[in-house]
């Protein structure tokens, strides 16, 4: 059996930051990711990030990804790509399948789960037609593969993902025919929403998609107004001439590994559903297993990076790589930056939801 001090699962912003922090402290880190390239969703974030200077605000996600990878290389962090973590046994043994053909078990002193989240689906007649896809999938197509998913887009969901992807689809040359939002209010940051609005895209609040029609791909979509009980109001249907429907209806933490390993679950509707309980240091109910990023509650890339630092530093401290004082200074600084990200109209709710998880007594 292979042995490593810290195994980080998932090489997105959270996992990369966790690996860097643990490695800087001196731990031997193995970073695994199921994809062929590291970086998670960072390399399709072509927009500038929010926050303050220390959160790398104003820097594009794609450039942050490159910086993190360069640093990982400098620190000589071992990275396994095309490596799927399939299980965790006895709280320490990570079963990894490499290149879809070879099983390897790695015994880790500490495991940091940074598996991210998956897009929620919305089901309606016609949703399985080609042309209906997650907004994240559309973003991957335009920003990574440089392929337009279609010409005439309906965006379902006005949160940050829906709005940012709408804007990037416009930039890529598509026509965004409408953004529908089931809630009575728009959900995304004002700056991005205003850009899409200024481009002339119609927004429909209290509306949802009722049906997609087409023979072998989407040829039109019907939207409908919702009453205050979220029920469609007959007679308010509108048919839109679209060939693509993007679903931006939130994300769900990818918790399979954590729960199959035995980590205690906790329900947090604001953060995406069932999440593994964790303490302030990002340790789960299993002391050898830590969390970072969307698996611990869906937020954003900048918070994922801070959480990664907190988890990486905590894991290194628990292995004796940093003394108590160094840990306290480093951790408090990361936590302070985190609290700044979790402030304001949107952040405060996430801050409260996170505090509820940490404050929840186990068992």
């Amino acid at each position: 059996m292979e042995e490593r001090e810290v195994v980080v699962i998932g090489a997105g912003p959270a996992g990369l930051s966790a690996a860097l922090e643990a490695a800087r402290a001196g731990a031997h880190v193995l970073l695994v990711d199921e994809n062929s390239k590291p970086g998670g969703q960072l390399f399709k974030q072509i927009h500038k990030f929010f926050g303050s200077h220390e959160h790398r605000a104003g820097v594009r996600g794609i450039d942050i990804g490159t910086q993190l990878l360069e640093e990982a290389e400098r620190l000589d962090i071992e990275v396994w790509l095309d490596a799927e973590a399939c299980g965790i046994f006895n709280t320490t043994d990570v079963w990894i399948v490499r290149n879809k053909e070879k099983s390897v078990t790695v015994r880790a002193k500490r495991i940091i789960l940074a598996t991210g989240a998956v897009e929620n689906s919305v089901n309606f007649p016609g949703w399985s037609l080609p042309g209906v896809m997650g907004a994240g999938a559309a973003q991957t197509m335009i920003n990574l593969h440089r392929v337009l998913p279609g010409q005439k887009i309906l965006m379902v969901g006005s949160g940050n993902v829906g709005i940012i992807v709408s804007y990037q689809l416009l930039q890529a040359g598509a026509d965004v025919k409408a953004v529908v939002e089931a809630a009575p209010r728009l959900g995304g940051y004002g700056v991005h929403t205003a850009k899409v609005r200024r481009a002339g895209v119609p927004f429909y609040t209290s509306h949802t998609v009722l049906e997609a029609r087409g023979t072998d791909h989407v040829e039109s979509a019907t939207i409908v107004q919702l009453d205050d009980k979220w029920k469609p109001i007959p007679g308010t249907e509108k048919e839109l001439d679209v060939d693509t429907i993007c679903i931006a209806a939130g994300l769900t933490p990818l918790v399979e590994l954590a729960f199959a390993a035995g980590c205690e679950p906790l329900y947090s509707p604001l953060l995406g559903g069932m999440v593994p309980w964790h303490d302030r240091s990002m340790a789960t109910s299993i002391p050898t297993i830590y969390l970072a990023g969307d698996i611990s509650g869906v937020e954003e890339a900048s918070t994922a990076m801070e959480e990664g630092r907190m988890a990486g530093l905590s894991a290194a401290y628990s292995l004796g790589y940093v003394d108590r004082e160094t840990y306290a200074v480093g951790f408090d600084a990361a936590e302070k930056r985190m609290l700044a990200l979790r402030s304001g109209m949107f952040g405060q709710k996430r801050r409260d939801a996170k505090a509820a998880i940490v404050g929840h007594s186990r068992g």
Partner: protein
Amino acid sequence: MAEDKDFFICRCEEVTLREIEQVIDEGYDTLDDVKRITRAGMGLCQGRSCSKVIARIISQKTGKPIEEVLQVSYRFPVRTEKMKALEQGGGSDATDN
């Protein structure tokens, strides 16, 4: 508006909303029940797309709080793998076809 319920909720195993509602009405009102009776969530994606949707349907139809219905038990392997990949250290000398 006539309600169309003959669209898939579980795309991998091609299980429709009508089928899922039907088994819930018959009393199969947990995710595991629905999965075992209809195979919804047993396909390639292992319920990553539909399990939350089915939980919501169960919650709405039965009045059970959603947090009591959502999936919290999972089994290894959490990814679909070929049998040849399951053997420890195996596969290195295995050949395709």
